[in-house]
């Protein structure tokens, strides 16, 4: 198992390394001269030079890159020049909010997706099957910015039962905090939940066709035991794989959902950084986005290998 993880690590590190170089170079080459932007139009040449030296922009590019990497490893990321606050603190605060949103969405997606997927695979009624098929197909395809706005329109504008945006008091006051979290989390969870449902249903149907299930039925296993011990465990690997892919992509959805619900998370911070041309903040956040994707991919592979010995043995 450990050997399997170690085999998967190098390619992930390479991807992360190449991505960090791409982010660094692209932003450095495109952002013009941040020092003169910072100094303002009235600043003298020596002021600009002082700011440039302060940011390390007078050093050669490889040195600047290494300084950036060192900053990431030590947590010393400098100050944001549009928000005038330490970048590490800005990222920390927004990360907490995004994690709250993402955790809520993932839990909802797993719970809802598993139930729907299980029903799709086991309910015999054609009508129910078609209905669930249509609902999950819509859930996969309808863009988050459509479902999110629709939720606001129904529950905040028309019926006024939920707040239309903001984080509220957070989860310190659970009852009220949950009201703020509910709509954004639902909007973010829909594509993931629907995807889980469809993959679980397809995988369970395939498993149900296998000979060993027939054998289980023939030797008189009770339905519940058959499902819990034989069908579901064997149907899980493709579902965890697709769940991993979905979680890796969750940040993109979070950018949209945070925009709709004025949720002060990483997505909002990233948009502020990009539109404010704050390249320091932008490069840190983009690297986080890529790192999340790469790490989630590895975790997914490990989980897959843990629940399916065939993968472990085949690739070890």
């Amino acid at each position: 198992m450990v050997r399997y993880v170690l085999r998967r690590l190098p390619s992930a590190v390479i991807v992360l390394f190449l991505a960090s170089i791409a982010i660094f170079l692209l932003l450095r080459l495109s952002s013009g001269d941040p020092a003169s932007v910072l100094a303002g139009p009235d600043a003298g040449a020596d002021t600009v030079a002082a700011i440039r030296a302060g940011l390390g922009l007078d050093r050669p590019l490889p040195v600047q890159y290494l300084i950036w990497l060192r900053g990431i490893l030590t947590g010393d990321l400098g100050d944001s020049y549009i928000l005038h606050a330490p970048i590490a603190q800005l990222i920390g605060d927004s990360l907490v909010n995004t994690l709250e949103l993402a955790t809520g969405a993932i839990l909802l997606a797993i719970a809802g997706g598993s139930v729907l997927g299980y029903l799709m695979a086991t309910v015999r009624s054609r009508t129910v099957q078609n209905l669930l098929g249509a609902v999950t197909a819509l859930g996969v395809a309808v863009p988050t910015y459509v479902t999110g706005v629709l939720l606001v329109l129904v529950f905040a504008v028309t019926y006024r039962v939920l707040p239309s945006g903001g984080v509220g008091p957070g989860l310190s006051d659970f009852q009220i905090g949950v009201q703020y979290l509910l709509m954004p989390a639902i909007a973010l969870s829909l594509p993931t939940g629907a995807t889980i449902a469809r993959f679980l249903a397809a995988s369970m149907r395939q498993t149900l066709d296998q000979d060993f299930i027939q054998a289980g039925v023939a030797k008189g296993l009770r339905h519940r035991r058959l499902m819990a011990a034989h069908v579901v465990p064997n149907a899980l690997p493709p579902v965890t794989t697709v769940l991993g892919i979905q979680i890796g992509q969750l940040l993109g959805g979070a950018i949209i959902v945070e925009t709709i619900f004025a949720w002060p998370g990483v997505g909002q911070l990233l948009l502020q950084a990009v539109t404010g041309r704050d390249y320091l903040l932008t490069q840190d956040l983009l690297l986080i986005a890529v790192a999340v994707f790469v790490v989630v991919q590895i975790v997914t592979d490990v989980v897959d290998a843990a629940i399916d010995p065939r993968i472990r043995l085949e690739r070890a």
Partner: protein
Amino acid sequence: MTTTEPVTIGAVAADPATRPARQAAGLWRGLRSPETITGLVVVAVIFGAGLLAPLIATHSPYAQTADTFAPPSAAHWLGTDEYGRDLFSRVLYGIRQDLLVGVVAVPAGAIAGTVLGLIGTVHGWLDTVIQRLFDVTLAFTGLVMGVTVAAVIGPGLPAVLLTVGLVNVPLFGRLIRNAVNGLQSREYVTAARIGGVRPLRLLFRHILPNAVDALIVQAALSLSLAVFIEGAMSFVGIGVRPPDPSLGSLLRTSITFLDRAPMYALAPMLVVTALVLAFNLVGDGLNKGLLKR
């Protein structure tokens, strides 16, 4: 199909005379499926309306009037926005941005990806380099790629076009590479190689035609993704920007006025959803006809 060369073993095994017919039958089966027909009709109506916007639109999409937030009426079919502009006309012109993204960015990304993927199948170490590049590109998922591009070249329609192109490169590259590598080990290809068919001819005449089906299905799904990305980028403020209308930018502005003018949001929402679903349906239908023989 006119060739002066002698018939080789490989050509016989690959049966090039009947392949186009078989493939056409698969494509026809895919096109005739109810999913594909429904999807194509919806796409044709929406994109047709966008294409003919100058003829169909009842007003200029930029003409402001004092009549702000007017409800739907005979003069303004979907009502007006915060500057008294006609929403129906703005939605029509908004469709054109997606038309542009679909016609320019998706094919560009598809061609670039296919070429890179093919280069990889011929050259060993180039393949490694290209695969790593694809890995890196894939790590910038959808909207994260959009934000990155907007950070580098600035927000706007060019950023949307470049994002959609870049996102599609590894999708098509991986697909064609895996399809070609899968076919390389088939008996008819081995037979052709032993029979002396040159590598490039083998690739273009015997392997590639059999790998095209997957690309056609991916194209439909990529168009769906393109509409989604345009909407997402414009919605979060890094794509098409006001006063230019696009489905995403209309929706972005509309959420400020949900209580006063729900139609402002509902119209672009409906069109964007219809387009995304329609392209998915086309993809599903083609998939059934072409790939699940």
